């Protein structure tokens, strides 16, 4: 296995640098739709810089898990990100594991985050952990099924291979199976990134929180890692949606012109997805917690139907 070091470095930089902008953009657009001016799109960078400078307060009851988790979260998100083709058709870590490794990486990060929520034994962390795991139990299978749908068409579970397969003639973009799988993945995206109607990323009401509840005890550098990790995970999932279902404009080689064009296409697709997320957040209230499994079950069923229909309409 040959590691393409420049590609790894480039994509890591892309993940680290682009992800806060995507979060900032979504926040800013949401504010605009709500008749607010909103914070500038660069705000998340300033926030991260501020958190990195600040001292940390760590509960004396916290164990090593609490200290370990921010690194795990950041690293798993980055590793998962390296497995997804973003600007080029080939993913830097495309040679190992494929889609199972990707989902596994995200699950590992989530596992540690849930533990870290429980670890300092505060009021709200455990509540967040329990809710997060309930949601993950349905969201993860739905995500796997949706990706498998495309994988079966492409004949490989390796994300790079899937995207390469899609570049060949005869690939149908608007296959009904893909449309169903895309819908399922979009719901999963909302759940995994803690968006309305599943979770509210902007609330101060601890009793209603899911993702944020697990972060409440974090401060300073650790908080920066956690926030950054979450932003990267969001970028990874969006890239997955963008390039798996709309594999257009991916750079076939590493020439500057091709890369530049690929970057433009990638940015365009991300903007469109972000706009869709913003519209959903703008028009919806949060679901009652016990209704969230209904929504995710819908995603699971859509994904299952997508998988079945790949065999039916073959």
């Amino acid at each position, binding site marked *: 296995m040959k590691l393409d070091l420049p590609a790894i470095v480039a994509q890591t930089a892309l993940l680290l640098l682009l992800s806060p902008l995507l979060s900032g953009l979504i926040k800013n657009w*949401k504010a605009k739709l709500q*008749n*607010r001016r909103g914070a500038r799109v660069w705000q998340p960078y300033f926030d991260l810089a501020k958190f990195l400078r600040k001292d940390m307060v760590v509960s004396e009851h916290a164990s090593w898990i609490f200290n370990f988790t921010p690194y795990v979260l950041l690293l798993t998100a980055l590793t998962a990100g390296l497995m997804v083709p973003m600007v080029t058709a080939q993913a830097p870590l495309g040679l190992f594991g494929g889609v199972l490794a990707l989902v596994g990486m995200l699950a590992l990060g989530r596992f540690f985050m849930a533990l870290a929520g429980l670890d300092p034994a505060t009021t709200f962390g455990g509540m967040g952990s329990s809710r997060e795991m309930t949601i993950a139990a349905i969201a993860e299978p739905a995500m796997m099924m949706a990706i498998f749908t495309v994988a079966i068409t492409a004949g490989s579970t390796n994300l790079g291979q899937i995207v390469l397969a899609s570049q060949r003639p005869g690939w149908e973009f608007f296959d009904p199976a893909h449309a169903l799988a895309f819908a399922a993945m979009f719901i999963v995206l909302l759940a995994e990134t803690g968006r309305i109607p599943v979770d509210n990323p*902007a609330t*101060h*009401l601890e*009793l209603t929180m899911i993702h944020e509840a697990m972060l409440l005890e974090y401060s300073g550098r650790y908080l920066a890692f956690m926030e950054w990790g979450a932003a990267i995970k969001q970028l990874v999932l969006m890239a997955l949606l963008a390039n798996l279902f709309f594999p257009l404009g991916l750079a076939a080689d590493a020439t500057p012109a091709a890369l530049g064009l690929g970057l433009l296409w990638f940015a365009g697709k991300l903007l469109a997805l972000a706009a869709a997320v913003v519209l959903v957040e703008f*028009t*919806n*209230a949060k679901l009652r917690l016990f209704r969230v499994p209904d929504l995710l079950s819908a995603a699971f069923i859509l994904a299952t139907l997508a998988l079945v229909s790949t065999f039916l309409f073959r």
Partner: protein
Amino acid sequence: MNLLPSLRPILDELTQRFGAQIEHAHAPQPNELYLHAKLELAGALCSTLYRKHQGRLAGVFAEDARAGQNVFFVYYLLALDAAHGFVLVRVPIPADQPELNSVTNAIPAANWQEREIQDLFGIRLVGHPNPRRCALHDDWPEVYPLRKDFDLHSQLPPFMGERHKFREVEGEGVFQVPVGPVHAGIIEPGHFLFSVAGEPVLYLQLRMFYVHKGIEKLFESLPIPHCVRLAESISGDSSVAHATAFCHAVERAAGVEPPPRARALRTICLELERLYNHIADIGAICTDVAFVTAHMHAMRLKERILRVNEELTGNRLLRGMACPGGVRFDFDAGQLRALAQLVDELERQFNDLSELTRGNSGLRDRLETTGVLTPKVARDLGVVGIAGRASGFDHDLRRDVPHDFYDQVQFTVPVLTGGDVQCRFDVRRDEVVQSFAILRQVMAKLPAGPIAVPLGEVPADRVALGYVEGWRGEIFHWIHTAPGNRLARCKVKDPSLQNWPALSEAILGNIIPDFPVVNKSFNLSYSGTDR
């Protein structure tokens, strides 16, 4: 005795039934009847008024009269909405044996108020189902701040008493979730202890009075004109309602009627206060279920009202307007035009907001069937105001015992029976629409003339009840005047004190993440409760 004809049969029936045990009856105002009775009669009289005459136990409070009569007096304030008046039952408690038979078992609405008397006056409750500390926390030393021999400037010893023991629900998988007293939002302190099995709430214990400020004691130290500013600060979101209720009490004690224009201007201010609070609450309920879009529009409308408030009175929260005998500032033609324009604009934009919230199925799904307060519980706990009216408890002082200009305007009182968050939301929405109508009518009928009558020194030893239907519910200020234009006692009754226990009932069987929106739908004042 100059008594309202509708109260007369009630008095006759009570005197017939209890005879000489009612020692004295008098009515300083036609709708305010005092019955002085023997201590043993308190329970029976209250129960009769409560059960037979559909009275609401609107207040229970005590007064230290040991200096003159060597007794404490305990008053039971019963609001008889159908008879358009109030009955105050007064019983003496011997100073050497300060004990009171609790009425809480018969009338649960008395619960917190009786315990407050026990804490602040040292009158021991007999037969109370839960006679633990309430207004003063468990670690307070044995002092009784509202007794006359307790100096306002007393330095208390360090609090060394026992910490409060919360009630715990036990069982497999039952957890305690403590929330507060310091919260994430910019709100006041209050402690909520949830006992949960997973997400569903089995029991919620509330603990208030973290910011007891001794306001009722402070009233006794100030000349009456200064007290108005104090009344304004009891609860920031009800400053007009509290100040106006206090002014009513003073005017009734002095036997002065404020001029018609003053009453009209007070009504305008009360309705503006109702408007900005209701609209803000409608938005806040939406944001608690993450429908932030509606919240932002509501905030915009609220800000518009606050700016007109400032244009009218020089203060965004309408402070400084109230004074005994009338109001302090008149509105000129330009200000009235601004107000009329506000009402027109607001009505249009509020309709859009209503449509936005009505048409969102996700929002309705969150609000409907959430936090149900049944009509029976609402009546038992004496839940007042919007929360009561959303649970079928039909009363509104503006209609039943009209004060200020409310007898001159036409309006309906929205009453719903569902008792869930959606009903409390809808009652607010409907009341906003009624407020527009009230404001228009007041402006159309606005009388000319002076805005205040001079109020000399208020005669000593008068008792009077001031009342106002604030936006949250009814507010009472009961005063007993003292020589030198001062007060011997001022009892402040904020609707929040009455409604907090209802929250514990409404949340049962709901899930924890729904608590914030249920709480917001009541939107009770910590400051008004703690005083």
